[in-house]
């Protein structure tokens, strides 16, 4: 329960919440910290900040203060790889990435959490790549004093499946790249795919890449896949031969190599003819020719997810559709753009 008293009558009382002062261009922060005991000299200062009344807190049995609530919420929200410190500022607690990695937000859980009237949490988009120490979310209760039960319920909602927010390190994998196409194989045109794919893997922290070239021949593509698997590659990327053209036989090659799962087509542009397949646990990603002409494609959306161990199926390739249209900016600023962030 909150009691409102006049500032003049507050001498000797403890302030119940941080009181913010903003001097434009000069200072923004707590002029008075929670728990500060008001003395005679403070009255003028408080009035200058526009405070003619103060709240005194008189906690009932089932009530808690916002700082206590914020800590409960942060604890519930933070899953693996997300850390926070119990020093709420103006009732708010920030959550940070514990390591470099990929932020994963359980959106249903976050929405359910935010449906509780008394609380809020705002986060970065799911699948944002983050650096160690980077802020990924912030949470706070809305009222200064509230009943304990809704806060506990919100924290319980957040806690399901181990927290609404998690940061996963990208696994370093040995990558097998297969460049398909008879013209490249026969030296008629120069391959440009291999350096691009190698660079992408390097950017994601995987430096061990092996490259094999194969002509448009399903059996030879199959053999190339088998070679990479025999060399204990943990991820295979295949370029070219991915369209519906009769000469494009990469899919056939993957099939022959014993694909246990195969999804052709993704709801992203560029990247409609993307292919995702698995041979047992080994993911195979087929990138169509768009990967040559566009700096950012479906591959950039899916690679980090594969590297944190996510299994990509039909549903995930479909859900990328909302926000899956690249704006084709003259200068690509991905990931600081909406591409692939609508899921």
């Amino acid at each position, binding site marked *: 329960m909150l009691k409102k008293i006049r500032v003049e009558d507050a001498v000797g009382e403890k302030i119940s919440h941080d009181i913010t002062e903003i001097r434009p261009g000069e200072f923004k922060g707590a002029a008075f910290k929670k728990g500060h005991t008001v003395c005679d000299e403070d009255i003028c200062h408080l009035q200058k900040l526009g405070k003619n009344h103060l709240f005194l807190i008189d906690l009932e049995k089932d009530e808690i203060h916002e700082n206590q609530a914020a800590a409960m919420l942060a604890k519930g929200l933070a899953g693996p790889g997300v850390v926070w410190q119990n020093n709420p500022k103006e009732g708010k607690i920030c959550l940070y990435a514990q390591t470099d990695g990929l932020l994963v937000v359980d959106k249903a859980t976050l929405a*359910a959490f935010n449906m509780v009237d008394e609380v809020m949490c705002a986060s970065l988009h799911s699948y944002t790549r983050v650096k160690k120490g980077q802020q990924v979310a912030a949470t706070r209760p809305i009222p200064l004093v509230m009943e304990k039960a809704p806060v506990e319920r919100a924290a319980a*909602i957040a806690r399901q499946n181990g927290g609404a927010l998690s940061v996963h390190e990208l696994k370093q994998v040995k990558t097998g790249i297969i460049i398909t196409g008879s013209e490249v194989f026969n030296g008629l045109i120069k391959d440009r795919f291999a350096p691009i794919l190698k660079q992408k893997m390097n950017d994601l922290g995987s430096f061990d890449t092996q490259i094999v070239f194969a002509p448009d021949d399903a059996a030879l593509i199959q053999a190339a896949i088998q070679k990479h698997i025999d060399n204990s590659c943990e991820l295979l990327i295949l370029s070219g031969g991915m369209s519906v053209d009769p000469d494009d036989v990469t899919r056939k090659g993957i099939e022959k190599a014993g694909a246990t799962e195969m999804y052709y087509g993704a709801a992203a542009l560029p990247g409609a003819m993307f292919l995702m397949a698995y041979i047992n646990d080994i993911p195979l990603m087929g990138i169509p020719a768009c990967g040559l002409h566009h700096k950012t494609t479906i591959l950039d959306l899916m690679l980090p997810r594969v590297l944190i161990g996510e299994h990509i199926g039909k*549903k995930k390739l*479909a*859900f990328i559709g909302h926000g899956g249209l690249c704006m084709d900016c003259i200068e690509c600023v991905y990931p600081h753009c909406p591409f692939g962030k609508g899921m």
Partner: protein
Amino acid sequence: MMKPMECLLEESAKVHGHLCPGQVVGVRMAILGCRLIGLDEPTQRDQIKKLIVYVEMDRCTADAVSHVTGVKLGRRSLKFMDYGIMAATFVNLETGKAFRVLSTEESRDLAQIYAPEVDKKSVQQLEAYKRMPDSVLFRVQQVQVNINELDLPGPTRQKAECSHCGQVIRDGRQVVKNGKILCKVCTDNCYFSHAREITWPAMNWSPHNGILKKPHIGIKKGMVFNKSNQVISKEKI
């Protein structure tokens, strides 16, 4: 141990007549309610007498709650409170513990996000309600329920007679007005009106004589009927 949710849901849908989102909410409400009051198999003989459930709506959910818990109107273990609220209170008579489980309004809005791949609204709700955790689907209040002794299961504890119509009234449901005992029908607060006593066709029918069922069969001397009104001849007996 209670049966798994899917199994209870299937049974409940059969009894109720269809599978609907209300069945999922009701089945889960009952599972949670029973768990909270410490009953793991409410339909079993030793537990059935410990349980009373107050349902606050007469909708699909009420049927599912009563199916899973085994509470019944005729056993006085099911109480209908006509509040129009999607909630039920589970009382353990032995411990006195009682919890009111409310279905949250926000769970309706969240159906889309918990089952985004389902497009038909009712199917989406049904699927989402299976996936949501209890904390999203429900709010729970610990409550105190003061049950009047006259509302408890067991034999009739009191009988009274209406001073106006002579009707016998059981279990203290009489009303005292100006010092006179009345049945609820004789007060102004009755659900029907304009009652008048009538006679009706074939009013002497009974399952035993079967007159209504077979008026076309002339009953001849020597014919013998069994209890199902089939004619059996003397020879066959």
